[in-house]
């Protein structure tokens, strides 16, 4: 009597086909999941950089734009896509020395190549925050300056429609102090 050991050809074919289908389905699901995670990571990266921007901008701009009363240099210069701030904050002895030599006494801000770039003093523009697509400034309500930021992802996420640009408006009050800090101008 013939004993049935192992599997027949037909059984092997069916089992191979089913295994292939299951493996293919697994790969498709993993691929989609990986793509979704990658896109989500792009958005999280954009948001984390974007959410940091107001903190850093308010920290840099407010002191540099305050002390500009009767100074020989322009305090706040707004150009398309570029903000220039000059302020005498302190010198070597701790008091103003009539020079814009200390860090963050002369500041320029712009957005270039999807980066928020900062130039302090005589240095070059340095990228400080990623994913900032554009930046514009409005000084119509001086002494309040309004900064409009637009942030985007590094590449277009394939799982989402649209360009996924986020926008924000930040207002910063630039008081106009004299160097002595006693009287305030307009």
């Amino acid at each position, binding site marked *: 009597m013939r004993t049935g050991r192992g599997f027949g050809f037909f059984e092997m074919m069916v089992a191979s086909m089913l295994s292939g289908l299951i493996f293919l389905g697994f790969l498709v699901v993993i691929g989609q999941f990986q793509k979704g995670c990658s896109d989500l990571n792009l958005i999280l990266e954009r*948001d984390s950089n974007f*959410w940091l921007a*107001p903190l850093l901008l*308010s920290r840099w701009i407010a002191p540099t734009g305050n002390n500009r009363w009767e100074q020989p240099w322009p305090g706040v210069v707004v150009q398309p896509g570029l903000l220039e701030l000059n302020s005498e904050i302190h010198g070597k002895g701790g008091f103003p020395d009539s020079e814009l030599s200390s860090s963050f006494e002369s500041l320029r801000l712009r957005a270039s190549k999807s980066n928020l770039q900062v130039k302090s003093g005589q240095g070059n523009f340095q990228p400080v925050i990623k994913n900032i697509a554009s930046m514009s400034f409005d000084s119509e*309500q001086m*002494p*309040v300056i309004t900064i409009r930021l637009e942030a985007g992802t590094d590449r277009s996420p394939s799982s989402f429609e649209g360009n996924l640009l986020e926008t*924000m*408006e*930040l*207002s*910063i*009050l630039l008081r106009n102090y004299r160097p002595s800090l006693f009287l*305030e101008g307009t």
Partner: protein
Amino acid sequence: MEKENLGFTLVEVLISMMLLILTTVSLLGSLDQAFRHYRTAELRWRATIEVWNQIELLRADTPAAGDPLLILPDSRPLYRSVIRDSRLLGQSGWEVLIADR
């Protein structure tokens, strides 16, 4: 000859399916919670920016607005304003003190 028992019984399959479903539902629930928290954080960030902008405009206004406070006799009065936003959960409001110029 006793027949060899290959494969799983119905009970084993049902228990495995139940565990798989529970795990999947738990993972999806956690993901949903994570997205909800992220959305809340985003709303609060936006609300904070808007409140900040309101405060900066308030501080720039001349004359100063708000409830007058006289801390010392014959001193310049301070003006107090409180800005609230329902999106900033758990916060009683931002208090702004502005000196008259």
